[in-house]
């Protein structure tokens, strides 16, 4: 008798997590999306079109790079980077965005809205909107518009309207609230292009499916490079989309899966975003999952130097994987992440996003626990957008030397 495969699980529920905890006005749109997506995933034409876009626009398959010098610097292991940073727009986010943009066309909608933290999903959404001729509004917490100003400019150049959200903590959580409010009012004409594996069904399943190409490609690439499966697959976790994307293909394999959450100032301080490690189950943004909340069920403020991980919720499938013991979740502090960002830059000539650096920072400890391990890392995004934060953090403003006139 065959065992139930973990990887076969689809929403609305992942164990006790998931569901649709949203106001009734949105249910019709979620039903429509669920229906259109179910049709599309079984339609060879849809798959063909998406594959073509991945090949000719996104730049897939993304390559696998072995980071030998980085590995030598951190310990006894081999490190393989799945280069989602090389995708068009600079992160994994485009995988999901192109899929949902095609669905938007199928639904006959002309306007997309999106939330963004670091700006990666906002940039990807603005890009798809430009490509497909859709109107695009991106909601971004005011704090994030400041720390990711470069991405704001990119989105605007692409023709999107960027709305700074001043409510609540003025970060990703509040950007999602505002996008939901827009969606309630404009659901007839608008698709909410949610950027992570959180939110109400069908988003967690659909967004995961669109990102599962990361794991599928890298499994093949690891087999080609090493002749076997990796010993561990790791990724950073905010909402959890890049992590689920690379984990999914390995869920039923004998491979260790580790998600790294942002521990901010430290996992035992109040200043962190380690939702799974330190949170409790609750309902946020339409799904039941682990979340950071106080004893009254009010959402707690999260903190991370990385805008993309600064979120007090997480996708329901991760909560399920944590409870099943299938995946493990660990915290990485701001400092550890920034050190790893610098190390990869200097040893390999690859500047990772600060989000991604959280996964890289976990390798040193992992190599101690699994000596000689082959570790596959989802290099989910490039760090160009983080130069202002990095320049401040490492004091890189100005130049080393000036030559020329006195």
């Amino acid at each position: 008798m065959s065992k139930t495969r973990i990887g076969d699980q689809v929403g609305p529920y992942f164990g006790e997590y998931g569901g649709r905890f949203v106001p009734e006005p949105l249910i019709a749109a979620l039903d429509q999306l669920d229906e259109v997506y179910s049709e599309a995933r079984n339609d060879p034409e849809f798959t063909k079109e998406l594959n073509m876009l991945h090949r000719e626009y996104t730049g897939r398959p993304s390559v696998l790079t072995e980071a030998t010098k980085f590995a030598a610097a951190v310990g006894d292991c081999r490190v393989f980077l799945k280069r989602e940073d090389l995708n068009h727009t600079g992160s994994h986010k485009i995988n999901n965005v192109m899929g949902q943009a095609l669905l938007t066309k199928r639904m006959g909608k002309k306007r997309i809205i999106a939330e963004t933290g670091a700006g990666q999903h906002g940039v990807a959404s603005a890009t798809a909107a430009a490509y497909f001729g859709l109107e695009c509004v991106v909601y971004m917490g005011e704090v994030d518009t400041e720390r990711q100003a470069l991405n704001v400019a990119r989105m605007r150049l692409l023709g999107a309207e960027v709305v700074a959200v001043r409510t609540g903590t003025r970060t990703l959580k509040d950007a999602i609230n505002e996008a939901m409010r827009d969606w309630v009012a404009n659901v007839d004409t608008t698709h909410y292009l949610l950027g992570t594996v959180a939110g109400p069904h069908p988003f967690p399943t659909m967004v995961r499916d669109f990102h599962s190409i990361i794991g599928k490609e890298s499994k093949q690439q690891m087999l080609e490079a090493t002749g076997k499966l990796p010993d561990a697959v790791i990724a950073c976790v905010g909402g959890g989309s890049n992590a689920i994307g690379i984990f999914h293909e390995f869920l039923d394999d004998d491979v260790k899966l580790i998600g790294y959450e942002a521990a901010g100032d430290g996992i035992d301080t109040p200043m962190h975003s380690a939702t799974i490690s330190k949170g409790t189950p609750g309902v946020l943004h339409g799904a039941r999952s682990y979340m950071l909340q106080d004893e009254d069920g009010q959402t707690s403020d999260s903190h991370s130097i990385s805008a993309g991980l600064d979120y007090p919720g997480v996708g329901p499938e991760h909560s399920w994987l944590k409870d099943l013991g299938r995946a493990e979740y660990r915290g990485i502090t701001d400092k550890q992440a920034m050190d790893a960002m610098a190390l990869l830059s200097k040893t390999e000539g690859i500047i990772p996003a600060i989000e991604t650096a959280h996964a890289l920072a976990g390798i040193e400890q992992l190599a101690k626990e699994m000596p000689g391990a082959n570790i596959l890392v989802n290099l989910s995004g490039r760090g160009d957008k983080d130069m202002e934060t990095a320049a401040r953090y490492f004091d890189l403003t100005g130049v080393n030397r000036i030559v020329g006139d006195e």
Partner: protein
Amino acid sequence: MSKVTELLNRDSSTLIGYFPAGYPTIDESVEACLEMIKGGVEILELGIPYSDPIMDGPVIQKATEVARANGFRLRDSFEVIRRLREQTDVPILVMSYWNPILRVGLREFSEQLKATGANGLITPDLIPDEAKDWIAISDELGLDRIFLIAPSSSDERIKRNAEASRGFVYTVSTMGITGERGQLDALARDTVARLRKVSTTPTAVGVGISTGDQVREVNEYANGAIVGTAFIRAYAEGGLQGLIEKTQELAKGLQLQSD
């Protein structure tokens, strides 16, 4: 039968008023609710301030932020209900997003509602599909449970949500969040008409109602009108006196129209 159902099924108009518990402080929120009731509000919708109110517009968001900044805690909701109950028999329905209730524990929360004399719950982000436990506990304790229907709801969902409700079913007047609207959508009238074809559950219409004329208009086809933002704006701008005047204006919409 639910007292709320009885009230709404009378052959007259009904005004349902929303006000957040603890806004701006606990004492002042009790005082404000009592003035609303004195002025003609026959069912009180008592809001629980919450960090992520995705159905609410800026006025209610701001008010609930003020309440929380002034130290509002969830247990204070029960204190407000208790104090109101000492002075009024008007039905009190608590409006809360789902997470605070889950956090306290659904049974614990429901029993506290019952013990303090609240009549039930309005749940903006809980659809009957996800409400098995709440339906069972509210049946057991005899608490009203108000689900929503919207212009976008299918006839099937309208029927299902109406049948799952106890007390009344809340018709969302328009596609959007709470806040005043100059003109009420024809959508509200259509939605109520669709409801009437599939269910006898009474309904009150909310979202966007801010004038006495709109209260009158809504009561022509629905069993009651729900007003929130307009009360809070009046209070924020004119204090208790402003709230009293706004209540009087809205209550004019309850009087029979003389042709």
